[in-house]
């Protein structure tokens, strides 16, 4: 009992020092990646301009500011780049070395991505807070919903990471996995609501988008924090998040098991 606790504490300490080391080594890159995620902010300026002379589809300028700053924060904390390294490991056979370890390579990538989130903590929230204050959008947030917002971000992260991991595993069958990532990204940005709030679309389109996983990656967490959703809608949203999480965890496990058979069959 006592020894496991000590072991875990030591593991956590090691992980923390690795985080710090990585942060120091790649701090410039982290900053660049954050700047590279500015598309929601560009959309914010455009929509705020459109709403300058009166609300657009129920959104005043401050509503747009709150919406897109939240989109920015959700995207930053669900950042996922696993397709490239994973498919490279499979294609070039680097996976063989990883398979020797008594740990599913999945967890190595999970740790990588969690560390990236930790690195964003000192920068992203203050910047967003500043933006909210400057645009007068702070009052648009429902502070009471913050715990639910965090939960929704966690759900979004689980869906996105497992979705991308599954896509990366496609490399067991074809070397085109990374080209699909571009397609996925375009759909994700539009359906997720990173370019405009999807309630600006006709109701039918909204209903269709609400069935796809993409809505739960950006649009849903943002709506939670804006306090727009009733109790039933919240339940439904979190239920959908859970459903899609399970679907993609299942897909990943299926692809992993079958892909591994192929991989050994190739004799790499």
């Amino acid at each position, binding site marked *: 009992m006592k020894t496991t606790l000590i072991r875990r504490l030591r593991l956590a300490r090691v992980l923390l020092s690795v985080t710090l080391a990585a942060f120091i080594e790649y701090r410039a*890159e982290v900053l*660049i*990646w954050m*700047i*590279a*995620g*500015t*598309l929601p902010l*560009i959309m914010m*300026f*455009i*929509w*705020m*301009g*459109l709403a300058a002379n009166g609300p*657009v*589809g129920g959104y005043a300028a401050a509503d747009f500011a709150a919406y897109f700053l939240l989109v920015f924060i959700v995207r930053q904390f669900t950042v996922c780049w696993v397709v490239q390294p994973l498919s490279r490991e499979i294609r070039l056979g680097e996976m063989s070395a990883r398979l020797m370890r008594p740990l599913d390579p999945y967890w190595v990538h999970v740790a990588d991505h969690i560390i990236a989130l930790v690195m964003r903590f000192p920068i992203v929230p203050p910047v967003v807070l500043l933006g909210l204050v400057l645009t007068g959008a702070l009052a648009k947030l429902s502070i009471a919903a913050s715990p639910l917002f965090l939960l929704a971000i966690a759900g979004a992260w689980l869906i996105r990471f497992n979705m991308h991991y599954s896509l990366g595993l496609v490399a067991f069958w*074809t070397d*085109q996995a990374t*080209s*699909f990532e*571009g*397609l996925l990204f*375009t*759909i994700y*940005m*539009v359906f997720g609501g990173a*370019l*405009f709030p999807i309630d*600006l*679309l006709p109701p039918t389109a909204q209903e269709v988008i609400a069935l796809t996983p993409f809505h739960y990656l950006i649009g849903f967490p943002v709506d939670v924090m804006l306090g727009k959703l009733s109790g039933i809608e919240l339940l439904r949203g979190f239920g959908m998040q859970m459903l899609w999480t399970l679907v993609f965890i299942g897909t990943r496990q299926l692809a992993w098991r079958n892909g591994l058979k192929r991989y050994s069959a190739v004799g790499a």
Partner: protein
Amino acid sequence: MRYFALLRIFMANSLQLELEYRANLLIDFVSSLLGFASGLVVIYAMFNHATAIGGWSLPEAIALFGVFMIFEAFIEVFLYPNLGKLPDYVRTGNMDFTLLKPLSSQFLVSFRYFNIWRAPDAIVGLALVGYGMIETGGLRPASILLAAVMLLAGAVTTYAIWCMLTTTAFWWVRVSNVMELFNAFFVAGRFPITAFPTWVRVILTFIVPIAFITTVPASAAVGRLDWPMALGSLAIAGGFLLLSHLFWRWAVANYTSASS
């Protein structure tokens, strides 16, 4: 003259190479289609609720999106397949072979490969510009010529910025992120510069001249160009090209190869 002959050989060679990997064709086609559709959906969502973006009407905004698509294609066809490889050349030491050839190394690094499958984007972009021109004032030879010159200037500026960003690979090998940095600003180019608040406009005009790359050619096409901007565009293209060449020469002079 020799360089034109080489360009033709490189193009034929790239075409042969690309035909080996025809699977790319379908994926590239679908991603072109999706990029096009998502761009139009955004414009649709905006004009569903407004009559103008930054003073630009619907056909004008479509022409601008067309220009944006042309530049996206330009980047995908020419810049990414060539300059995108520079960090690898430096990391692996292959840069040495490039420098040994009796040619301008900047030319060789910039125009060796072409990803022709993304070229259709440019045709769609041109069609959108054409649509915008017909809807706003007609396809007059003068405005076509003006738009073509401004497009060319924009292409030169885009090339020069990309070239300078990737040249930093001589010092920082992990430069792929630096290209992301350009994209972060470039995505603003699908909207008219007038749609942004003043401080963003200043950044996009004077620091990262995206305004000259997309807004100015589109303005020329739909007949709303003002001459200071047109002349500024030419000056910036010339200035940036010269700067990129000087920077390249300086970088190569300081290059110490991978092994040493």
